[in-house]
Every structure is written in structure tokens, then in C-alpha cells.
């Protein structure tokens, strides 16, 4: 029984020695039993690769070794899973709260971060072998209240585990150490024990090692060390503590292993001298062994690293010889995931379970009950992973239109009501264009009944009991949602069930069946863990659906699917993972100041001083000491080390290098970092994917193109020409709304030729932006808005119009003139009009009232009251009386015909609805167009033909309503919210003789000509800007040149 502490300069030397030792032992006896203890699964994989098919070797991590020991000791102890630990902690905290034992953290007991902190604290206690009673007795004498609460919590926690014969994962190590200490004859192994890859051990681990060392013929512990450095050296700080702890606990022989140098000489130099206070030697760096790269962003950093990795792979370097590490994996993971996929490089990283589309669909299903929100319900019905038998795709398409028309937001009632024509009304809009009929009125009753029944069955099927046991909910999910009957999970053929959403079957039939089934299997594991936890930590018999759902979703959101281990891939991990591995090529990302080294994590329970002063020895084990980690990592690279860092932060400010980056540079005379310029693009020879290659070819204007890329190259060049045309000051072209094809022009003339009956809003739209007219009227693209509670601006406008129409119609009937004298009477009329309109406004205007509806009504009343008071004051000076409300012309159902406006070459036919016409004693008319917005219209906008109501309605009124000998006196826009008017036109003679009208008409006829020539360029309102929001912004390319182009087309 001998124990050796082999001190080696690097993991490579340890590996070499280990492999030689094993080879020697196996040479004499292939069945000689060997145990190896390693810190991580990655390190174990590397060992397994190196050991090949050598037999009788057991490779363990501490936890698996503890399990093996406890198995042999026939311990009837059951390990509880993480979910059960969390549930147990919550349950104990609630019990303590009931007993008023946890005042200090009473309000934290349901906070996930606090539960996490407690788990870490328990781990700390257990890794140091501190008993609950020991903690209690010490802290109740001299500890703080917090300590006393923690000690009591620890006591209850451990009591429960003991009573149930359970252990948590950390407790297993402790139990294994105790089992070994209690019986020296137990777990005797007639073989060798190797421990490598560790740079620290907890108290309990050392107790285990001490016991195990005596049970093997020989035990060999490998520790990275540098005998040439002082023990107090910075790089040895952590290792020195570990070494002393081992020497003080275990009797062992100290052996310094000579360094079998396989490391390239410059890396060896770096490893030997880095962090020396006074550098003994500075040499000229070899850029083939150490490279430093500064990138303008993290993305550029990752792209460079992966480009180099791809180059290595193309040179047939095995993927397992290359690794990519970074200080903060969560920051770099999304970038590495995206870029490696783009470059087609197999990188070993986990995929969040929630990102799998099948699981995402399943989670959506969980979120449906009991409200069935509009968007989520339709998404679920349309998901390819939901094979529901009740609604066909055609039905779902119809349902989407109907539910959108009827503003379904959530709730089974709303859904079902939308499918009943009797409950639908045609909403009123104050628009001359609105003439479409709702879909629900056009469908046959049979179709509607089918949709309604299917939808209702879908809702009933997905409505779980509001309260049930965890097992009942799990069973419901398995059978009714996933479509797995218990015990049939492993069967290959699972037929579609009439009573299920059949997600499992959908995964089997998916084009990515392997990926989806793997994800589903992980989801099922989560369900099993939930079930096990509910058995291990029994809680109340029944829980609410929401609680079950929230716990399940939070568990699934933390789960990750490991990458395919059978695939040879590049390792991507945190820097710490590199301690126990060796690499030929290592790429280190993120070496900027503050990233690495970084401050240690904050401890919510104790400050450093409190730990030092604590009566118990409270040692916080951190993942690594960063100086020591950096030194160990450098020692593990054999051929080439590439260091990368971003030199700009996310705000574009300069970002200095990490001090460890500088320490590397200090060891060489010429190690100048290569700096990637901002917005740099690789040359064709450096391109790592097709997109990069094509872009590089275009940028360099390559003449020789590989035949397989020719088609795409042509397309990209064409796109470049289009883009250049857009960015030029040349007149607008085919790709900017100017359509050249005669066949298209013909079609446009057919619809918008001389027989078309125009409305002022159509003409305004072209005057405002021809491209918007093109998108909406010619392409017939409408922005679909998701239903929301409350009314939108259009519906609000219609509501205001309707009330004003009602008020002034009543005034005409009652023969009341707006005046200060009549003000009170008019306000009474306003009140009754508001009551009448508000009564059925939601149905009439098609909106679901929000909780604010009551207050909105009051606000509208206030607004209109102020408007009417203003009207009374103004009208006192001019004495008009309300004459007509909503005076329509040109609609087939109305007596007034289409207005025809003639010019020398052409004519225009017009229909419209005039909000209000007032008349004075002389029979003169005043035309009013209500505006619910406060943006005023200038006379120049009228001349430009972008605000034509005042002109066109004045012409219509003159033609259709004016008594002979009289005249239209005024036409104006009335802005309701600001009690003011704009765009006012005063007429001294006929409307047609007014200069502004003449100019506007001239402009209208110009626009009609341009429409017929299919001329629809975008016309920004001012420099590069359109309105703040435009539904069609995604379709048009407004840029600084657009104004010039609009001017060239006489659209300025």
C-alpha cells in the first residue's frame, strides 16, 4: 500500500505518466483492476479516448465513486433529485415560517435566488462535513440570528432526509467517507488508484481519498506543480493550499515528475515564466505557436476563432485536438452557436430544450388553459406538432379571419360568440372606402357549426381540472397532449389517438424526427423527475393547474440537450474546464479587462471577514483561483495558443486588455496582437461559408467564379445594381414603384381608369405617398393588426363622428342654433346623444371595451363638451345653422349622384360623405370635415393634393346642395381635440374659381395621369423621414435620394 503524490508541470506530463503506468500494469496482468478519479465528464471522455479498449478500468467522478462505495456497503439510501431538494427546502421554510422561526428571511422563502443560495450553502456545509447539530450548538452560543436560522433549517432538512433514508448528491460523498471510516476492511481493492485533473479537494473529498488510499495496492495522485517556482508564487497559490491539505492528511511519497516536453518551445517558455515578478528571460515569439487577436466585437472575435478552427479541420486536424474556451459561457454561447452553424463546424454545446419546436409547441399548449388567448390558440392550432383531429386547416384559416374580424382576445365565450352571425354586427367606420362584408355572414351555417363544434371540443380537451394531483396532471399531459399511453413510450409504432394532440406521433413523422424525439424524451424525463419528487417529498394532495404548469415550465426552461456525443466535435466550454484537459490547439475568447480575471461571485450570507471570524471553519470553494487557472491552462496546450479579445465594448468605447493578456505579451519581445478593423470582411481565401465567399467575391469584383456559384453570383450582382440604383439620384426605376410593363399598366388602367369612382381619401393617399397607394390599392396589402382590448384610433374617430352627427341632427330637428344663449340646451342634447351612442358602441364599432371604457366615455364627453362650447362662441359671430349631417353623394343607395369634375382632356368621378354642412340666413353654406387628430393641414397641402376634403366637398356641395343664387362660403377641417380648424378655404364667388381649388384640381389630374402610367415612387414627407409610423415601411426603401426622385416625377 503506497501513496504517491506526483507533481508535474502540466496535465500532459500527468497523462503521459498515467498511460505509461497503466500500460506497465496491464502488460503483466491485463485483468489488473484500475480505478481512475477525474473531475469532469469531458476529462473522462478524453481519458477513455486515450485508453482505448483497455479492460478492467473504472473511471469515476467523486459522485459515481461514492455511489459505488455505498452500493458495496449495501446502504439502503435513496438519492433525491434536484426538484425534490427544492421542494423539500420550500416545504421546510414554510413550516419554519408557521412556527415563526425564520424572521430574518421570512419574505425570501419563495424567491428562486434565495432557494439557490440555500442549496449552495447546504453544499458548503456538506463538503466540509459540518453536522447540523454541530452548527446549531456553535451558533446558538455565539452566532448571529441569521446563523441560528440557517442552523435550524439545516437541522430540519437533514432530519427529514435521515428519517426517509434519503440523501442529496453532496450527502452521498459524506456517507461514503463515513462508510469507509467505519469499516477498514470494507471496499478493499486489489489494484491501483489514480487521481488526476484536480486542483482542490473539499474536506469530505480528502477524507474519502485518505480512506481509499489505504485500500488500494497503490494510490497515485497527480497535482500540477512547478518545483522551479517559489511556493509563495502567484501561480501556485491555489495548488499550494491543495498540496498542503493532501500532505497533512495522507501519508504519501512526494515525487517530482520530469517534464516530457511535447509542448512547443515558445509555449513552454510562456508556461515557465508567466507571472514571474522579474522575468528571467524574454524571447522572440513564434507566431505559429502564440497568436493574439483583437476584434472590434465579440461576434468578430468568435468569427475569427471559428474561421481558424475551420482551417485546421480542413487540414485534417482531428476535432478533439482543438478547443474553444471563454470566461463566461452564457455570453458567448449564442454567438458560437450561430457562427458555428453558419460555418458548418461541429461544436460541442448544449441546446436549450425550449428551443426545440416540438417542445415549444407543447409549452404553448400548457399556456392555453383556461383563457385560450387569441394568438397562442391559433399558433397551436397551426403547429405541425399538434395533430388535433377536430379542425381542418381550412377551418383554422376561416377561424383566423372570423376571430380577427370580431376582435377575439381571449376566453372561450368570445371565441364561440364570434362564430355566431347573430351576435355579429357590421362595424361602422367613418370612411368612404369601407364596403367589405364580414366573413362570418358569408359562410354556410353547416361550415360554421363544424368550426364551432371542432373548436369547442379542442377547448374542452385542453381544459384540465383546475385542481388535481401531480400524477393526474402528468397522466393527462402524457395521454391527452403528447399521445403516449403509459408503458408504451418505448414502442416504435404509436398510432394516432382520437383523444390526443399526438405530439409524439408528430415528432415521429417530423423531417427532424431524431432531434424532436430526443427533445421529447428529455421532456418526459422532466415529467418523471416531477413524479419522483412528488413521491419523495409528498405535499398537499392536490395542487392548482397554474402551480403545476409554472413549475413544469420553469424546469423545462432550465433544461439543455447535450450535443451528439457520437459526433467528433470541437469542445466549447468555460476556461475552468480546461484544467483537466490537454489540447493541441486552444482558442481563448474574451481576454479583455473585467472579463477574465473577474471578481469572485457575491455571497449573500457572509462577508469574507465574517467567514474568517466564524466559530466554524467556513471555506468557500470557488471553481478556480484565476491566476493559477491561467497558468494551468497554458500548460495544457501543446502546439498553438490563440488568444482573442474584443477591443471595443458594446457602447463602442475602447476596451483594454485583460492583465493576463499583458502578462503573456510581457514574456516575448515581439508579440504584437493582430487587430481586426471595424466592419472588416474576409478575403475570398479566408471565407468560411458560402455567404462570406460570395460577399468577398463581389467586393473584390472577382472575374473567375467557381461554376457552381455562378448563378448566385449573378443574382447578387443584380441585387447590387438594384441597390446602387436605389441609392443614386437617377430617376426612380422598376424597383422603386415605377412599373414598366405594359400589361401591368393595362391592368391598372382597367381599375383606375376614367370609369373609376374616386374618393377623397384615395386621392389624398396618392398625394401623400404614391408608393403607399400602390401597396394598399394595387397590391391590396393590408396590415393585419392583432385584436386588442379597447378601441383603435379609427374606431375612436368613428365614435366621435357618430356623436357629433347625432347632436347636430337633433339640433336641426329641434331648430336650435349653436350659440352661447343655447349652450346649455345643446349640452343636454350632447349628453343624451352620448348616452345613445355609448349604449351599443362596442357592437356598433366592433371593439371589446377595455377596463377603461367607463373612463373613456367620460373623457369623450368632456372633449365634446369643450368643442361644442367653442362652437357656440364662434358661431355667435357668424350665425350658421346645422343643415345636413353625413351628406353622401355617389353611393348607389343615395339619391345624390356621383360628382363629375371635368378638365380639358379628362374627367374625374367622385363619391364621398360630407361630415356636416351648415347654412346661414342668406343660404350660404359652410362645409365641415371633422378630424379626430390634432395635426393641422396647410393650404399648401391642399394645393399638393394630399388633403383634398375641403376642396372636393365644397365642389360637391356647390353642385348638389346649393340653392340658386347662393354660394359656398367656407370649407374647413374641424379638429375635435384642439377646438380649432385648419385648411380653411373662403370662397368669394364659385368654388371652381378659387385659386387653391384650381391648383388642387390641376394636381389631381396630374396624379390621375401618373397612376395610369403606373408611377408609384415613395415620397417622403421631409428629409429621409416619412410619418412616424407607416404600415408599409417594411416594403419601401426610403432614403435621402427619394426626395430628389419624387421631385423628378413632379411629385414634390
Amino acid at each position, binding site marked *: 500500500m503506497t501513496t504517491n503524490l506526483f507533481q508535474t508541470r502540466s496535465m500532459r506530463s500527468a497523462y503521459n505518466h498515467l498511460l505509461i503506468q497503466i500500460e506497465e500494469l496491464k502488460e503483466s496482468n491485463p485483468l489488473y483492476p484500475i480505478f481512475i478519479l477525474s473531475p469532469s465528464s469531458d476529462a473522462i471522455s478524453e481519458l477513455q479516448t486515450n485508453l482505448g479498449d483497455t479492460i478492467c478500468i473504472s473511471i469515476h467522478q467523486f459522485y459515481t465513486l461514492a455511489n459505488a462505495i455505498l452500493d458495496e456497503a449495501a446502504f439502503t439510501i435513496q438519492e433525491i433529485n434536484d426538484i425534490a431538494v427544492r421542494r423539500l427546502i420550500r416545504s421546510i421554510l414554510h413550516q419554519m415560517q408557521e412556527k415563526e422561526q425564520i424572521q430574518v428571511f421570512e419574505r425570501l422563502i419563495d424567491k428562486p435566488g434565495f432557494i439557490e443560495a440555500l442549496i449552495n450553502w447546504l453544499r458548503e456545509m456538506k463538503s466540509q462535513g459540518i453536522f447540523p447539530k454541530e452548527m446549531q450548538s456553535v451558533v446558538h452560543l455565539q452566532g448571529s440570528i441569521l446563523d441560528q436560522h440557517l442552523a435550524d433549517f439545516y437541522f430540519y432538512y437533514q432530519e427529514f432526509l435521515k428519517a426517509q433514508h434519503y440523501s442529496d448528491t453532496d450527502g452521498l460523498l459524506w456517507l461514503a467517507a463515513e462508510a469507509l471510516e467505519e469499516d477498514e476492511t470494507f471496499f478493499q481493492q486489489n489494484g491501483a488508484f489514480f487521481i488526476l485533473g484536480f486542483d482542490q479537494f473539499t474536506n469530505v473529498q480528502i477524507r474519502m481519498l485518505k480512506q481509499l488510499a489505504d485500500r488500494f495496492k497503490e494510490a497515485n495522485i497527480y497535482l500540477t506543480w512547478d518545483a522551479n517556482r517559489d511556493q509563495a508564487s502567484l501561480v501556485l497559490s491555489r495548488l499550494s493550499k491543495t498540496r498542503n491539505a493532501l500532505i497533512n492528511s495522507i501519508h504519501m511519497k512526494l515525487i517530482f515528475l520530469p517534464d516530457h516536453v511535447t509542448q512547443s518551445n515558445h509555449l513552454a517558455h510562456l508556461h515557465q515564466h508567466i507571472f514571474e515578478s522579474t522575468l528571467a528571460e524574454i524571447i522572440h515569439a513564434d507566431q505559429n505557436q502564440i497568436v493574439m487577436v483583437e476584434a472590434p466585437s465579440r461576434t468578430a472575435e468568435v468569427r475569427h476563432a471559428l474561421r481558424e478552427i475551420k482551417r485546421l479541420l480542413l487540414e485534417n486536424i482531428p476535432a478533439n485536438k482543438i478547443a474553444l474556451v471563454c470566461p463566461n459561457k452564457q455570453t458567448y454561447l449564442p454567438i458560437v452557436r450561430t457562427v458555428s452553424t453558419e460555418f458548418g463546424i461541429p461544436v460541442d454545446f448544449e441546446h436549450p430544450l425550449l428551443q426545440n419546436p416540438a417542445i415549444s409547441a407543447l409549452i404553448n399548449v400548457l399556456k392555453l388553459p383556461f383563457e385560450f388567448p387569441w394568438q397562442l390558440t391559433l399558433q397551436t392550432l397551426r403547429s405541425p406538432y399538434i395533430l388535433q383531429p377536430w379542425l381542418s386547416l381550412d377551418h383554422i384559416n376561416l377561424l383566423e379571419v372570423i376571430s380577427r374580424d370580431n376582435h377575439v382576445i381571449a376566453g372561450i365565450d368570445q371565441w364561440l360568440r364570434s362564430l355566431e352571425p347573430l351576435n355579429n354586427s357590421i362595424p361602422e367606420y367613418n370612411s368612404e372606402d369601407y364596403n367589405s362584408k364580414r366573413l362570418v355572414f358569408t359562410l354556410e351555417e353547416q361550415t360554421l357549426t363544424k368550426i364551432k363544434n371542432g373548436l369547442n371540443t379542442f377547448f374542452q380537451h385542453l381544459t384540465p381540472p383546475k385542481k388535481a394531483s401531480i400524477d393526474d396532471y402528468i397522466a393527462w399531459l402524457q395521454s391527452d397532449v403528447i399521445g403516449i399511453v403509459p408503458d408504451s413510450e418505448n414502442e416504435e409504432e404509436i398510432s394516432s389517438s382520437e383523444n390526443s394532440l399526438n405530439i409524439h406521433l408528430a415528432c415521429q413523422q417530423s423531417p427532424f424526427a431524431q432531434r424532436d424525439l430526443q427533445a421529447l424524451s428529455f421532456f418526459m424525463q422532466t415529467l418523471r423527475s416531477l413524479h419522483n419528487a412528488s413521491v419523495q417529498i409528498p405535499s398537499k394532495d392536490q395542487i392548482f393547474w397554474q402551480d403545476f404548469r409554472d413549475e413544469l415550465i420553469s424546469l423545462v426552461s432550465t433544461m439543455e440537450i447535450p450535443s451528439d456525443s457520437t459526433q467528433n466535435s470541437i469542445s466549447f466550454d468555460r476556461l475552468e474546464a480546461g484544467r483537466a484537459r490537454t489540447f493541441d490547439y486552444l482558442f481563448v475568447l474574451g481576454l479583455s479587462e473585467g472579463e477574465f480575471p473577474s471578481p469572485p461571485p457575491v455571497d449573500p450570507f457572509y462577508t469574507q471577514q465574517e467567514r474568517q471570524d466564524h466559530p466554524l471553519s467556513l471555506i468557500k470553494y470557488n471553481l478556480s483561483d484565476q491566476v493559477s487557472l491561467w497558468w494551468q491552462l497554458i500548460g495544457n496546450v501543446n502546439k498553438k495558443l490563440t488568444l482573442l479579445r474584443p477591443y471595443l465594448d458594446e*457602447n463602442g468605447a475602447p476596451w483594454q486588455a485583460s492583465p493576463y493578456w499583458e502578462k503573456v505579451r510581457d514574456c516575448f519581445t515581439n508579440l504584437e496582437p493582430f487587430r481586426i478593423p471595424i466592419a472588416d470582411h474576409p478575403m475570398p481565401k479566408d471565407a468560411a461559408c458560402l455567404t462570406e465567399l460570395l460577399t468577398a467575391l463581389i467586393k473584390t469584383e472577382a472575374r473567375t467564379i467557381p461554376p457552381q456559384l455562378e448563378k448566385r453570383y449573378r443574382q447578387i450582382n443584380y441585387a447590387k445594381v438594384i441597390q446602387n440604383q436605389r441609392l443614386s439620384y437617377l430617376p426612380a426605376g422598376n424597383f422603386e414603384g415605377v412599373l414598366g410593363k405594359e400589361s401591368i399598366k393595362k391592368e391598372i388602367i382597367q381599375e383606375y381608369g376614367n370609369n373609376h369612382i374616386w374618393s377623397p381619401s384615395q386621392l389624398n393617399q396618392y398625394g401623400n405617398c404614391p408608393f403607399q397607394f400602390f401597396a394598399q390599392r394595387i397590391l391590396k396589402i393590408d396590415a393585419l393588426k392583432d385584436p386588442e382590448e379597447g378601441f383603435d384610433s379609427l374606431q375612436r374617430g368613428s365614435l366621435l363622428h357618430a356623436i357629433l352627427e347625432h347632436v347636430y341632427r337633433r339640433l336641426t330637428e329641434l331648430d336650435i342654433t349653436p350659440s352661447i344663449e343655447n349652450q346649455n340646451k345643446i349640452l343636454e342634447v350632447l349628453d343624451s346623444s352620448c348616452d345613445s351612442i355609448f349604449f351599443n358602441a362596442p357592437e356598433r364599432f366592433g371593439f371589446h371595451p377595455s377596463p377603461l371604457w367607463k373612463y373613456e366615455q367620460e373623457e369623450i364627453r368632456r372633449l365634446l363638451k369643450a368643442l361644442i362650447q367653442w362652437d357656440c362662441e364662434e358661431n355667435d359671430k357668424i350665425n350658421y345653422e346645422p343643415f345636413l349631417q353625413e351628406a353622401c353623394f355617389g353611393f348607389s343607395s343615395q339619391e345624390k349622384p356621383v360628382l363629375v369634375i371635368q378638365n380639358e382632356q379628362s374627367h374625374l368621378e367622385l363619391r364621398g360623405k360630407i361630415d356636416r354642412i351648415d347654412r346661414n340666413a342668406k343660404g350660404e353654406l359652410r362645409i365641415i370635415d371633422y378630424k379626430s387628430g390634432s395635426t393641422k393641414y396647410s393650404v399648401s397641402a391642399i394645393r399638393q393634393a394630399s388633403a383634398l376634403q375641403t376642396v372636393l366637398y365644397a365642389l360637391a356641395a356647390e353642385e348638389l346642395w346649393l340653392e340658386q343664387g347662393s354660394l359656398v362660403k367656407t370649407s374647413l377641417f374641424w379638429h375635435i381635440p384642439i377646438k380649432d380648424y385648419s385648411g380653411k378655404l373662403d370662397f368669394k364667388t364659385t368654388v371652381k374659381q378659387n385659386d387653391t381649388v384650381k391648383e388642387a384640381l390641376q394636381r389631381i389630374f396630374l396624379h390621375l395621369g401618373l397612376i395610369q402610367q403606373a408611377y408609384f415612387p415613395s415620397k417622403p414627407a421631409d428629409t429621409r423621414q416619412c410619418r412616424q409610423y407607416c404600415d408599409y415601411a417594411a416594403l419601401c426603401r426610403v432614403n435621402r435620394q427619394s426626395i430628389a426622385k419624387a421631385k423628378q416625377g413632379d411629385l414634390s
Partner: protein
Amino acid sequence: MKLTEQQLLAIQTQDQSLVVQAGAGTGKTTVLVQRFVHLLETHPEWSLDNLYAITFTEKAAREMRIRLRQEVEEKVSLHPDVPQWQEHRLNLDKLNVSTIHSLCARILRENAIACQIDPQFQVIDEQEANLLKEESIRSTQKRTILP
């Protein structure tokens, strides 16, 4: 760099709060760094994390950390036998130089139990905050306005 009399006064004055006012580029950061080092020098019993320095931007904090690091390393090479500087060098990763936001977050995390807040709280960005505000308005409306 030779320090002026006033700079020296700002560096060496102790046991009282101090406001140092000076124009851009006149050496305020230098004074702060030297004052930091001077405090460590004159209080050998203090550990590095007993001192805090806050700056307005993360960029300035980074620069100050680098300069303090250099100063401490220089002290170690000048006084290799003084254990206090060796200790400070070992603890350089714990340098408390940050923006005021980071310092506040750290204080809250370290005292999460006393403050009764989740120790793993996260600071949400502006977009998330806006979404949360909208959601809160909606739920408040439902709770308080609807019967």
C-alpha cells in the same frame, strides 16, 4: 510624474471627506489612484476589498482598475519582502472599482437577506421594463377598475 503640492495634499489628507475639483486632463484619476495606494500603504491591516472607488462609466472604471493593478504590482516588485503588498497582489481580482450602478447592485446582493430581496435579482433592460410597465398597467386596470 512629479506631483504638485495640491495633488500631494489631496493624496495624503486622511480621516476626512475630500472633494477634489479640477479641469479635464489635470490628473484627477492619478490623484485618486495614488490616494488609494497611499491609504493601503498607511493602513497595512486593511485588505484590498476594504476600499471602494466608483466612476461614472464602465470605461473609466476599467482604466482605473488597470492603473491600480499596475501600482500594486510595482509595489510588489519594489518591496518583495513586504507581505501586505504580496497579499494585495493575490487579491487583485477583488478590486472594488466600478460604476455606481455596479456598486449598488453589489451592495444589494451582499445584503440581500437584510434587504429581503432575491439574491440573484437581475437588472432588466429598458425594453423589458416597458413591457413590464404595460403588463402592470393592464393587470392594475383589471384588478382595480373592473367590478
